[in-house]
């Protein structure tokens, strides 16, 4: 299985990455993707606070290992031809893409499920942290969501 895992400050090109993932491999019938974006309201129980910018911190070295491990597990569980995971770090503005996950398989169910799996596990195991800056200039670390823990746990319970 081909894999491409990147942690970068630059934006990514969804169309280019999708084309690259499947180029020349005619056994691929399905490409599922997920793009996570910086959205205006991000805090649990505080849906009315608009954010201005977001800063993504990570643990260099460990992050790449963690993403690689997650992709290993996906590749054991589903029949996949290729996986791309790109996660941005640094300062991001409203509406900007944060993360891209692409999975390619012969069949759509494997592509869909593995893409969702990678996102769910990434959300609870990959060492990234978000800090929001509000329009008044104040900053705060984003709290982990309980729903993310539950989403990850359902894959471990054997579906």
């Amino acid at each position: 299985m081909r894999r491409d895992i990147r942690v970068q400050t630059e934006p990514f090109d969804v169309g280019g990455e999708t084309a690259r993932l499947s180029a020349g491999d005619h056994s691929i019938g399905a490409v599922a993707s997920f793009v996570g974006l910086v959205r205006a309201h991000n805090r649990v129980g505080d849906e009315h606070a608009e954010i201005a910018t977001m800063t993504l911190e990570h643990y260099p070295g460990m992050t790449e290992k963690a993403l690689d491990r997650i992709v290993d597990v996906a590749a054991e569980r589903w029949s996949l031809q290729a996986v791309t995971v790109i996660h941005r770090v640094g300062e991001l503005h409203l509406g900007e893409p944060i993360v891209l996950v692409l999975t390619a398989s012969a069949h759509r169910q494997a592509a869909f499920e593995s893409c969702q799996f990678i996102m769910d596990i990434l959300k609870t195991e990959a060492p990234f942290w978000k800090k929001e800056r509000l329009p008044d200039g104040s900053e705060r670390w984003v709290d982990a969501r309980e729903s993310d823990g539950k989403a990850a746990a359902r894959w471990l319970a054997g579906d």
Partner: protein
Amino acid sequence: MIRIRYFARLRDQLGTAGEEMADYPSTIGELAANLAARGGDWGEALGGTVLMAINQEMVGPDAPLKEGDEVAFLPPVTGG
């Protein structure tokens, strides 16, 4: 000697990104307890939910420490 690293909210709370430690206990869980026992911000930062890693792999509190390890304490992750 081990190297200890603090990330994100933990680093902000503790006011430091890390330290080196020559005398350290046998497990990472004991190390966390010793750090929390410093009191004040340390007790608050390390007394709650904290993830632990040794040499860039997540571990549980019973994981043993050895000379040269890179130990990290991490708040719950919020990427994606």
